[in-house]
């Protein structure tokens, strides 16, 4: 069932792919040019190759397709610069929830991720940073003990090495299968960030589609600067829960990044294709220095 060596190899292979050929399309050109995807927003068909060149943003309407953690690094960080941070993948099953550890193992095997949060050090346009990316394909990016622990370790690493911290969120919230322990991760991550902030560390939080629940109500909202990708759903209670509570249909565009920006909860909405430049600009503005060598 579990082959830790194979799992590890799969993950490392993906990381190597990112390091060696970060700007190559994830699909082979011969294949990608013929495979088409219809945009869920405007219906326009684009070849996978075209989408890939466009960082999975619809060329016609600008719809941002949800992307995984590895692809995020692929389009964002400098070639060969990402190094995963070790540790912090506890298997917490405090509720003895049926099949949960098996499900985790299967997902680890399938995705090459150790849990929903991938953390490491990287360089973005020459700026060194600690980065964390939540992957929505791993139990909806939900936060359990492993996500909380890995985030806290990343914060502590950034603090110890005087590096800026960048976190991309995409999450359904707390991981129900871990019960109260998942709730406590909200306190743990918030506490780690409060310390980091007090010591002068710079934390940039980027909301991507969708970010809700306990992640919104903890680390994702605590950035010195808060950014979001266009159209991202961001909220505490999900739209379905609110509709059931207030018993009415929610207005068009409710809980989108645009709505949050209008209500004062975001610094800016930034197109995925401009994020690399924006992040580099922000790191420069906060006094970090570019270094070209690894």
């Amino acid at each position: 069932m579990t082959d830790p060596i194979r799992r590890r190899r799969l993950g490392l292979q993906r990381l190597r792919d990112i390091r060696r050929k970060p700007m190559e399309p994830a699909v082979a050109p011969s294949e990608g040019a013929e495979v088409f995807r219809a945009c869920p927003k405007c219906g326009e068909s684009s070849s996978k190759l075209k989408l890939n060149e466009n960082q999975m943003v619809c060329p016609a309407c600008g719809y941002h397709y949800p992307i995984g953690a590895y692809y995020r690094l692929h389009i964002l960080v400098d070639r060969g610069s990402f190094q995963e941070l070790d540790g912090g993948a506890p298997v917490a099953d405090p509720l003895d929830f049926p099949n949960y550890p098996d499900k985790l193992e299967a997902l680890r095997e399938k995705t090459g991720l150790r849990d929903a949060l991938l953390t490491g050090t990287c360089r973005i346009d020459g700026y060194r940073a600690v980065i964390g990316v939540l992957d929505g394909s791993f139990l909806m990016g939900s936060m359990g003990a492993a996500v909380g622990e890995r985030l806290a370790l990343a914060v502590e690493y950034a603090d110890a090495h005087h590096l800026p911290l960048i976190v991309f969120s995409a999450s359904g919230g707390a991981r129900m299968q871990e019960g109260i322990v998942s709730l406590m991760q909200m306190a743990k991550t918030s506490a780690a960030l409060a310390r980091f902030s007090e010591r002068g560390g710079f934390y940039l939080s980027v909301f991507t589609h969708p970010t809700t629940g306990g992640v919104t109500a903890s680390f994702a909202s605590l950035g010195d600067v808060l950014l979001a990708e266009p159209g991202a759903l961001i909220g505490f209670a999900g739209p379905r829960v609110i509709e059931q509570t207030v018993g009415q249909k929610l207005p068009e565009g409710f809980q989108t990044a645009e709505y949050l920006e209008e209500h004062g909860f975001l610094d800016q909405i930034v197109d995925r294709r401009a994020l690399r430049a924006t992040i580099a600009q922000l790191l420069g503005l906060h006094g970090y220095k570019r270094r070209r060598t690894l």
Partner: protein
Amino acid sequence: MTMIQEIEARLTGLEQEEASLSGDETVNALRRRQIARERGELLETCRTLTPADKVWLARHNARPGVADYLGALFTDFFEQKGDRLCAEDPSILGGVARFHNRPVTVIGHRKGRTLEENLKYNFGMPSPEGYRKARRLMAQAEKFGRPIITFIDTPGAYPGLEAEARGQGEAIARCLADMSMLTVPVIAVVTGEGGSGGALALGVANEVLMLEHAVYSVLSPEGFAAILWKDSSRSSEACDVMKLTAQDLRALGVIDEIIPEPLGGAHRDPQAVYDALDQMLSKSLSMLSKQSGAQLAENRYQKFRAMGAVKEDK
């Protein structure tokens, strides 16, 4: 219907009967003795309650709430309203009071007892303004070196349109972050329902106490069943797997001490609960008061930093 509901109904029936006894005194005295015995037997069956029973008790309308504790354990209470930004949220009650003569800041979720009160206090479900008021009061406690005692009793933060528009997530996150840095003693008491992030927002404490039949969970059992099994009617099954009782949570290290309740629940004899809580609060407070501000912040940080750091799998 859970077992405790049946017991509660029969106890209420006996109490009503006892109150309405009239006529021959010798017959009445006999019946009174019978009632007392039946009552005692019924209460004995409350020694073993299921998690679903505890959820029902934790939500009981007559269960003591923050206002009751303020009246019974504190003196000289001065309420402080408002978040200084836009509104006052009465579902969180807060202010300064004396605990055994020592000024402390008290903050707690308020549900109210009558329907009118329930509506006024939004059934104990705070809006962002409530959490921002709590942060304001905590910052003042920090400034004046007052210990903070919080009372947790909420189904969760209010999941509504306006609450979202005004940043419910951000308000809770800031509460968590700010609480973790305080250099004064912080004690949280889970008195009823500790529901989700809305409860935890007042729970980043040095010592977390919990009433014997209170519950504390990532989400309501109904919500848990709806998310994991797409069926909110399986809530009693959810109660069994969620480990939401004080006994389970102490085993998991999420809470520190359990305050015993009288048989049948806190509402059957509130004074007994006040006495037990008073003792435990005094003990915790004097223990925490021996620590320096830096130690308090560090210990609180380490307490939450360690949560969930179990078996490492590499």
